[in-house]
């Protein structure tokens, strides 16, 4: 259980970092008096300066202010100051509902990790999940309820709301709850009670809607949900405009599944992935064969695929029209592969179009994938947005047919395609209540704002996939005077506002009976809470798989009729997509995510208009030129980005930017592309835009500006055939003569292996590393200057032609060279070799000559150009007492003027060794996981001891695919890479 408010008073906060103690103390004092902690003023800021090594070094010259140490009044049971406590909970970062383990130190959540006990999601998370812990400490969160923009007490608000709801008029009040997808069965039950009790209508709204897919599934199989796709079971995967590794539906689960089907060491049969899409997405960049298509071609591609499959099946051509897609060759290959792997293949489609989805279902049905790779019996409940209901609601609101509107976890004033209409309609609603945690675009217009807890402060549960349950529990006492949304609902329903009790009761009634393992509910509950996940046995029992019943032939006919509509000359189709970091914009105020380079473009801090190289040449556009996109009533201005592999017919813009009320960090970044969404995908003709140059130039903040490997052997790519040929033939550079005497072997030799075939480039490791190692955020300008501080970066290279490039990614962190070029050049011995093979950077010894950085062939060293931890210019998390609470007390915050770099998570190594020592044993393989290894959903990174021949690392290092980057320099890196395998039909492009 999370500790009560006393967590403020532990010794360690004072021990960990004196200034943070000061800052947190003042908060504690205020909280004790029931006041809100004021947002850090400049004076606080100065009062807590002296955080950093430099400050420590300087203040060391005089004793300075004496430090206070304030112990607990009453030591909570089972909590040792300075020792981590872990809680299992459920991620609220997006709608996927991954299981999490939250690491708390002295009552503060400081790191989230995937819950390895979760059969569905495993131990990995995505970048957004990693960053949620920072959004907990976001200074923009509301510190209490508001009534018409003014702070009010909960009692006032409740009184006003209840008065309004119970006001007896001629007719019963018409209440509408507009919410995002609610994964929690208990919450849904609660809302159901409302609907009976108060006649509440529940409308589920998702800014990025998968409603078409759900409607098609209902029509095809009679299941009102999205099928549960099983990429791990598919040997051939064909995806049409579905970024399932990056942003689509449940990326972490899909990445884990997908990678499991592509491990040559485990099974010779590596899945083949064929991808049709408009812009080069993370998923597309991993495909074995990728074809750029216009958004309007999605239907045609699906249809053409259906025709080929139908012909192979001998079912005859469903429609008698001519082929209209440009991707004939790829379609033939796809059809052949799919057919060869009948029942072990999978076609997924992200189209927001009913007919296309029907046809895709038909293809899967014809291939016999239903019940195998496409599970409709236990479907996904992750995305339940309903566009039509939403449109209807806006209409009702406009007509004044809604008396009260509850907004829960939604921000339609920003992300509804016709936001202005929604805002207008809101004016006709007598009472609007927002449960948003901040004063976002919608909450700012609401009558009452009743801030919800952050999910790390709240109770809850989730059922992301049918009969797969997980629990959420508080990991910290609420930082502000907020109240769980469910408690608010209970309160207004006239029930005791105790959702914890409600949740327990719900589980007692619904789930406890579905298991035999535990005799008493309390045992069951404690176990479920401890594990975080619960999958009832009966859930697994196979039922009769449903069969395709819907009339897909009519959909096919409709598609055929629609296809071939001519595209007006000089116009481009709008293609709107989500980025891996920012997604739908809900986390726009999270600096970690804003600074996370896009896995493909490597651009940070803002969105841009993606155009094809051919188009750019034709229009004379270079990256950074601000272009204006005009499409009738819609007009956007944003910088252009020239993207190899982009469809020449489409211009792609990411949503999630252009927030006006996201907060200090996220407001005013980029341009809002949601207005384009209305037209996107449904009827392309409406979405056609013209591109004109404005003459302005706005350089984008990209972390990588050169995209070719220049013929250097950096990322190795081989074909499956080649793998079979040179199995066991590992080029061993260690045999090369060395001038240096070999070091005597110590107990350990730490090292790492990165499987480039498993790595998708999703960049979760970058954010995980940032969270674990207190890596500062530097902001857009500094990234433009090439000064991002990430200790691990994902290098991305293109090979092949501009129009049809193959993409290679390579996580690059300190290689911990056996003969490190950085070590001999440091004049003050600030970077030295450890006995167990680590290349150590000693911050407090560094004087900052940067010679090591110059001499590093991998350019993985990062220099503190400024005092990032106490500097008004870098007003991100490290510069507010609240934001600093996320810092890892086991890792020094670096001062200005010192070099830093990947330490291979030495603090975790030390902790692992200590744990072993405490248990009187030696560390076992797998005991110690680096942050990047732990977070990786694809399990592409392995840390271990090269001295232990049994360790997984030692095995991988000997793999036939194994090599080390720039081996020929004789640096002898301790980081090994495993070559990527491109399972391309023509036997491997490169």
């Amino acid at each position, binding site marked *: 259980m999370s500790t009560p408010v006393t967590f403020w008073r532990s010794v360690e906060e004072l021990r960990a970092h004196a200034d943070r103690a000061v800052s947190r103390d003042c908060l504690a004092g205020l909280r004790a008096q029931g006041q809100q902690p004021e947002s850090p003023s400049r004076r606080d800021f100065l009062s807590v300066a002296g955080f950093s090594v430099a400050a420590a070094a300087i203040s060391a010259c005089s004793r300075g202010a004496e430090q206070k140490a304030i112990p607990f009044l009453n030591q909570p049971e089972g909590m040792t100051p300075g020792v981590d406590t872990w809680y299992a909970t459920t991620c609220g970062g997006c709608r996927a509902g991954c299981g999490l383990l939250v690491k708390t130190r002295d009552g503060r959540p400081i790191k989230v990790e995937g819950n390895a006990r979760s059969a569905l999601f495993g131990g990995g998370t995505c970048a957004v999940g990693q960053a949620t812990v920072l959004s907990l400490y976001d200074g923009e969160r509301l510190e209490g309820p508001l009534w018409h923009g003014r702070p009010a007490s909960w009692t006032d608000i409740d009184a006003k709301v209840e008065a309004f709801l119970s006001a007896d008029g001629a007719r019963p009040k018409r209440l509408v709850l507009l919410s995002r997808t609610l994964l929690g069965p208990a919450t849904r039950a609660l809302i159901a009670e409302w609907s009976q009790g108060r006649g509440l209508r529940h409308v589920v709204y998702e800014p990025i809607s998968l409603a078409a897919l759900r409607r098609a599934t209902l029509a095809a199989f009679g299941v009102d949900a999205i099928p549960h796709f099983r990429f791990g079971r598919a040997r051939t995967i064909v995806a049409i405009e579905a970024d399932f590794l990056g942003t689509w539906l449940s990326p972490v689960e899909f990445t884990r599944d997908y990678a499991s089907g592509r491990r040559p060491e485990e099974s010779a049969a590596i899945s083949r992935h064929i991808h049709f899409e408009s812009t080069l997405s993370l998923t597309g960049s991993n495909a074995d064969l990728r074809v750029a298509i216009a958004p309007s071609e999605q239907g045609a591609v699906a249809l053409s695929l259906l025709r080929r499959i139908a012909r192979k099946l001998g079912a005859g051509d469903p429609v008698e029209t001519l082929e209209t897609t440009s991707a004939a060759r790829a379609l033939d290959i796809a059809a052949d592969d799919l057919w060869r792997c009948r029942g072990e293949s999978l076609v997924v489609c992200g189209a927001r179009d009913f007919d296309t989805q029907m046809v895709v279902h038909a293809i899967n049905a014809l291939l016999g994938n239903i019940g195998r790779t496409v599970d409709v019996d236990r479907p996904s409940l992750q995305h339940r947005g309903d566009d039509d209901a939403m449109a209807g609601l806006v209409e009702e609101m406009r007509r004044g047919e809604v008396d009260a509107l509850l907004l829960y976890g939604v921000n339609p004033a920003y992300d509804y395609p016709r936001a202005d209409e929604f805002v207008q309609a809101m004016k006709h609603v007598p009472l609007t209540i927002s449960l948003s945690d901040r004063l976002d675009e919608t909450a700012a217009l609401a009558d009452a704002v009743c801030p919800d807890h952050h999910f790390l402060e709240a109770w809850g549960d989730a059922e992301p996939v049918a009969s797969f349950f997980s629990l959420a529990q508080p990991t910290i006492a609420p930082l502000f005077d907020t109240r769980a949304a469910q408690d608010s609902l209970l309160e207004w329903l006239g029930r005791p506002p105790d959702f914890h009790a409600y949740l327990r009761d719900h589980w007692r009634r619904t789930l406890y009976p579905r298991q035999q393992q535990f005799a008493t509910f309390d045992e069951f509950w404690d176990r479920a809470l401890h594990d975080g996940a619960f999958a009832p046995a009966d859930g697994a029992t196979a039922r009769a798989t449903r069969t395709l019943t819907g009339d897909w032939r009519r959909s096919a006919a409709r598609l055929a009729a629609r296809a071939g509509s001519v595209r007006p000359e000089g116009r481009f189709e709008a293609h709107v997509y989500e980025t891996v970091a920012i997604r739908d914009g809900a986390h726009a105020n999270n600096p970690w995510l804003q600074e996370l380079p896009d896995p493909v473009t490597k651009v940070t801090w803002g969105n841009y208009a993606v155009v094809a190289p051919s188009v750019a040449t034709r229009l004379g556009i270079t990256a950074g030129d601000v272009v204006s996109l005009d499409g009738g009533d819609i007009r956007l201005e944003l910088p252009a980005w020239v993207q190899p592999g982009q469809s020449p017919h489409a211009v792609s813009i990411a949503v999630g930017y252009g927030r006006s009320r996201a907060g200090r960090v996220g407001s005013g970044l980029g341009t809002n592309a949601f207005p384009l969404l209305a037209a996107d995908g449904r009827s392309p003709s409406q979405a056609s835009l013209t591109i004109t140059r404005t003459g302005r130039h706005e350089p984008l903040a990209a972390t990588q500006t050169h995209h070719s490997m220049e013929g250097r052997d950096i990322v190795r790519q081989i074909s499956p055939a080649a793998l079979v040929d040179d199995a066991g033939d590992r080029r061993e550079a260690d045999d090369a003569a060395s001038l240096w005497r070999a070091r005597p072997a110590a107990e350990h030799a730490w090292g790492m292996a990165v499987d480039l075939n498993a790595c998708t480039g999703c960049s979760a490791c970058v954010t995980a590393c940032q969270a674990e190692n207190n890596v500062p955020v530097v902001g857009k300008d500094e990234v433009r200057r090439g000064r991002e501080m990430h200790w691990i970066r994902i290098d991305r290279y293109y090979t092949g032609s501009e129009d049809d490039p193959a993409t290679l990614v390579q996580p690059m962190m300190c290689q911990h060279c056996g003969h490190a070029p950085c070590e001999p050049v440091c004049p003050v011995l600030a970077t030295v070799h450890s006995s167990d093979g680590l290349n150590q950077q000693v911050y407090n010894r560094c004087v900052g000559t940067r010679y090591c950085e110059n001499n590093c062939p991998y350019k993985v060293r990062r220099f503190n150009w400024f005092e990032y931890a106490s500097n008004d210019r870098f007003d991100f998390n490290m510069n507010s007492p609240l934001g600093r609470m996320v810092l890892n007390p086991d890792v020094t915050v670096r001062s200005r003027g010192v070099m830093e770099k990947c330490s291979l998570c030495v603090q975790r190594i030390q902790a692992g060794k200590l744990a072993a*020592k405490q248990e009187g044993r030696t560390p076992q393989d797998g005991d110690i996981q680096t942050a990047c290894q732990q977070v990786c959903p694809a399990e592409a990174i392995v840390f271990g001891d090269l001295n232990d021949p049994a360790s997984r690392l030692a095995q991988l290092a000997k793999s036939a695919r194994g090599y080390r980057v720039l081996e020929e320099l004789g640096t002898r890196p301790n980081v090994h890479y495993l070559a990527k395998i491109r399972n391309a039909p023509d036997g491997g492009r490169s």
Partner: protein
Amino acid sequence: MRAAAVFIALAAAVAPIAVALAAWELSRVGVHQGYAPIQPIAFSHKLHAGDYQVSCMYCHWGARTSRHAGIPSLNVCMNCHGLLTRQTTDIERLKEAVQQGRAIAWTRVHNLPDFVYFNHSQHVIGGVACQDCHGPVQTMERVRQDKALTMGWCIACHRARGPELQLARQATLGRGDPHAPFPGLDCGKCHF
């Protein structure tokens, strides 16, 4: 010219002494050996740890499992003082604080810089006595920083104990090179 010669001779004689003194002073910058601040409650370690033989780990129980030895929470004090009848002004102050639920802000005596990671449990397990670093606390009325706590002071101990620890460990593990560098001397042992 003789004046010049005399001047030079004097300078030559005085300079080294001055330099030596300056160097000594500089080397003591930031070293707080002997620091013994007044505490809000005049808690006597001599009485508790010395005369009454209360084990260090009874109050500073964190030292066994955590990086921090910890300062006992007031309920630990009350374990005994709840029963003991003896009253002094300081004990009064303690009980008052407990009744009012007011935390006591002790003044820290031993401060290591932020860039040093020190873990008590690691050393306690390693058989290092509390007194090795904190001095004869059981004889101190008011706690005083007894040792210099400089890096050189830490390293001296690591150097002294390192080799035999290493050999012992290698003997138990049955592997490792006796000439291997001792991990306890890695910079990354304490600085990360």
